[in-house]
């Protein structure tokens, strides 16, 4: 029995070696990437091809919601970036095949004099064909730069608010909407962003 208990000390030594925190656990700094979409819900009801539809987005609130879902705080964000944009018609019940073109501008409305600049443009989209279909759209560098500045401003502690305006000019809608046949649909351009979170974590890395 004495020998068995004596041998148990080997186990203790092994466990002590293996279990020593400084030996097994190491603090690592790693960057997590969270990918999310911010969507602008738009209701279009027009009797002319020339129109503008504004929508204000609480950008800070949107990002805060994303972070809350992931259980991280604003102070943990290292960087935010704009990745891509899409659009989708979410409701449409008319029989007319509206073909629309246009652009969307963006500007800061929470204080800083930034914008308006074009964020995205779209060309010859069939409204009924786009119903329920998520399609990529081309982004404009000036608009992307503004959104990236807004993301940085959020990280630095501000609460950016953005106004997006859909602008349709002459020749941008075919056929022309009229009082008798107005163009009515809901759609949502979405911007995909990534936020990079820096986290410190103790992980086992013994050798």
């Amino acid at each position, binding site marked *: 029995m004495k020998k068995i208990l004596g041998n148990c000390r080997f*186990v203790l030594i092994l466990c002590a070696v293996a279990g020593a925190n400084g030996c097994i656990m190491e603090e690592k700094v790693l960057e997590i990437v969270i*990918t999310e979409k911010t969507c602008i819900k738009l209701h279009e009801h027009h009797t002319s091809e020339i129109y503008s539809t504004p929508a204000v987005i609480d950008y800070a609130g949107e990002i805060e919601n994303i972070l809350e879902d992931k259980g991280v705080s604003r102070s943990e964000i290292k960087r935010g970036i704009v990745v891509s944009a899409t659009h989708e018609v979410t409701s449409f019940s008319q029989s007319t095949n509206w073909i629309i073109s246009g652009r969307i501008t963006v500007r800061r409305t929470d204080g800083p004099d930034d914008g308006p600049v074009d964020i995205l443009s779209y060309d010859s989209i069939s409204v009924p064909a786009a119903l329920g279909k998520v399609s990529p759209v081309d*982004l404009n560098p000036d608009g992307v730069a503004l959104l990236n500045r807004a993301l940085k401003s959020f990280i630095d502690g501000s609460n950016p608010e953005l106004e997006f305006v859909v602008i349709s000019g002459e020749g941008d809608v075919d056929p022309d909407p009229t009082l008798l046949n107005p163009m009515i649909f809901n759609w949502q351009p979405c911007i995909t962003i990534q936020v990079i979170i820096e986290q410190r974590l103790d*992980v086992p890395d013994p050798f």
Partner: protein
Amino acid sequence: MTGMYRFVTGYFTVLLLISMAVPASAQIEDQLSAYTGRNATGYLKPLADAFGADMNAGLFNSAQIPKMGPRIRLEIRVISVIFGDGDRTFKARTEGDFTPEQTVDAPTVVGQGQAKIIGGDAGTSFAFPGGLDLSSFAIAVPQLRFGAVHGTEALIRYFAVNTGDTEIGDLSLFGFGLRHSISQYFGKQLPVDLAAGFMWQRFKLGDDLISANTFMFGVHASRKFVIMEPYAGLSIDTFSMDVTFDSDVLEDEIFLDFEKETSLHLTLGLNINLTYAQLFGEFSLAGQNSFSFGLALGI
């Protein structure tokens, strides 16, 4: 009594060591959420390979099995893989609607902690998540060896840990194997002890997060020189793993099936026989090389 108390304390320290993998697992799920199937597989592969190698190692430390008589040994094994430079990056592809589509060397789960960010059209960017910056991946497993009946012994590996985290769930490993002495049929004709056997194991983390299965069958040889006993083994290993996680990109659950991999496994080790204890260390050459050391107590 004090010695036995210490033994139990030590045993639970080892169980704690096993459960230390849990925070890392939670973090891995967060990292994976930025990826869809193809990138996620490449991101996780080094860890999957290491886990398979660790599970299939440390299954024996001698080929000598008595024909009849009591054998009961409680063993504790530490098994580790050291990662090489090739494990640290993988060919990752940009995802979603990012343009232009690009393929770059991005960190794997064991690679650098810093995210890799690349530029795209119109000032857009795409970020690939960083890794855990691991040099090694080790597991410590308790196992019980008992027999012998007609030159046959059994090996059981078992642990189960309640992680206390509802998102991760519980962690468990169960393994069962049998080995049979071949040399008993040859009397003194063979210069070494020879045995053949198999081992099956199943690892589960959470309901679906990670589920892994291994199977090994092979032959083992050893020869005793006073207290020293060099040993070797040649086996065929199989390893398969399923991972399920939520993707931010697809806003859906992603199921990754790491298809069954089969590899040849050569083990070379040295066993030191003390009165009621054995100390051993070994190196394994397989699909992923590993080393192991440990201690057995009993008769």
